[in-house]
């Protein structure tokens, strides 16, 4: 395999990344003849033969196992909650996957457990070919999120907001005195005092806008130390 793109290069749709017979399709690429081409605007990260594309923009596409933040939008269907997960498709949460405990909906009703507008931190259990999405809450750490503020961000910057071994998000939580949940679907839930939430939001906005630039961690560190936006 011959790598044609350079490290850190901004790729446009159709740009050749590598050529040869042993090329493999990765996320954000397609194979055109014997060339691997980019299909989205992205930044190339190349280490030897290991190629990865960091997308600059793009809507969230659901995959099995993704941890997401969603908002309950419908509880009318029997035994089903419908959840807005910040993408083109609605997700469904069946009552039997909504908790480890038995939920007696006949006695208390559906809205007793989850009601309209409530926010949940959940996991995608299954995605069908036609994009029917099933969620689950049967796992430690998955819960209903009470209070707090929801904030959208570019889902492609999820890894950057989390940081290496969650270092970035832990730093933001610590310095701003807030509690933050970040969903892979481009939604962050922030809880704390109003001014602290504002500060945390500003930091996430900067990571969102400048996530592809090197030296961002240092900039965020300095910003949080000074307690003001640079």
């Amino acid at each position, binding site marked *: 395999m011959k790598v044609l793109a350079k490290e850190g290069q*901004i790729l*446009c*749709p*159709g740009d050749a990344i590598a050529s040869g017979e042993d090329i493999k399709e990765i996320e954000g690429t397609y194979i055109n003849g014997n060339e691997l*081409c980019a299909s989205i605007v992205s930044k190339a990260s190349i280490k030897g033969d290991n190629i990865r594309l960091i997308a600059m*923009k793009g809507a969230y596409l659901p995959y099995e196992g993704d941890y997401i933040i969603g908002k309950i939008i419908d509880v009318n269907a029997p035994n089903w909650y419908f959840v807005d997960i910040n993408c083109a498709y609605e997700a469904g949460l069946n009552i039997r996957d909504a908790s480890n405990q038995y939920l007696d909906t006949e006695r208390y009703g559906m809205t007793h457990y989850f009601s309209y507008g409530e926010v949940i931190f959940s996991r995608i259990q299954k995605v069908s070919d036609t994009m029917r999405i099933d969620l689950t809450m049967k796992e430690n750490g998955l819960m209903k999120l009470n209070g707090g503020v929801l904030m959208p961000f570019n889902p492609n910057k999820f890894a950057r907001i989390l940081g290496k071994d969650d270092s970035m998000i832990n730093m933001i939580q610590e310095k701003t005195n807030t509690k933050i949940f970040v969903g892979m679907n481009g939604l962050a839930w922030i809880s704390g005092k109003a001014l602290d939430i504002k500060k945390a939001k500003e930091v996430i906005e900067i990571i969102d806008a*400048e996530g592809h630039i090197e030296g961002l961690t240092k900039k965020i560190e300095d910003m949080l130390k000074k307690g003001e936006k640079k």
Partner: protein
Amino acid sequence: MTAKKTEEKKTESRKSYKATGRIDKRKATEMRPMEMSIGFLPNCAGSARVKVGNTIAIAGVYGPKKARPKHEELKDKLLLRCYYDLVSFSVPDRARPGPSRRSTELGMVIKSALERSIFTEFYPRSMVEVFIEVVQADAGSRCASIIAASLALADAGIEMRDLMPAVACGKIDDLVCVDLTKAEEDYHEGEGPTDIPIAYLPNQDEITLLQLDGKISKEELAQAIKMGIVACKEIHKQMKQTIRSKYEKR
């Protein structure tokens, strides 16, 4: 002297368009100056503005989002909708606002051209809407619209095979040339004007739009398409540069 003879004498004395040269002194293969920018509409997923000479087109992309109305949703691929509109002050005579036969047709033509460049199978049961506003029209508005829409789709992060450049080539009297202006389209002497808009996918070497309005011989059509493809490749380079400069300058 009879009227017929006077007419014949006039035709003999008239210089051909090839001999006089183009109205704006451009060469046959020369395009008008082009400006492009992306991502300036904050409420859109992606947006672009393209200026080709005096023609200005603005495109905004919304989605992928839930397909509405539900009965139009496609189970296995993306539903792409294109709306083309001439702003009322974009032409010398006021254009009547709202949809017209022409805008509906152009919306459909642009949609079918763009659909070829998008991986529609990646977004089943969803919808992407492309709104195109032509703010100033001086011929070649559908080509400017296709360039703007393609850039806006790339800016929105939709997975695509390639960016799609487009250009209007054609024949004025006896001269085959690219990127016609409104004055050239209205040149009715000699053989008159022929307008051939072309959209082209350079990576796939595929023509996705080819329309013809006027009269042209087979050989001249082949020549016009050839010239159009060369021009499209040049526009393609500029489109890529526009995207790169947005992220590299930061």
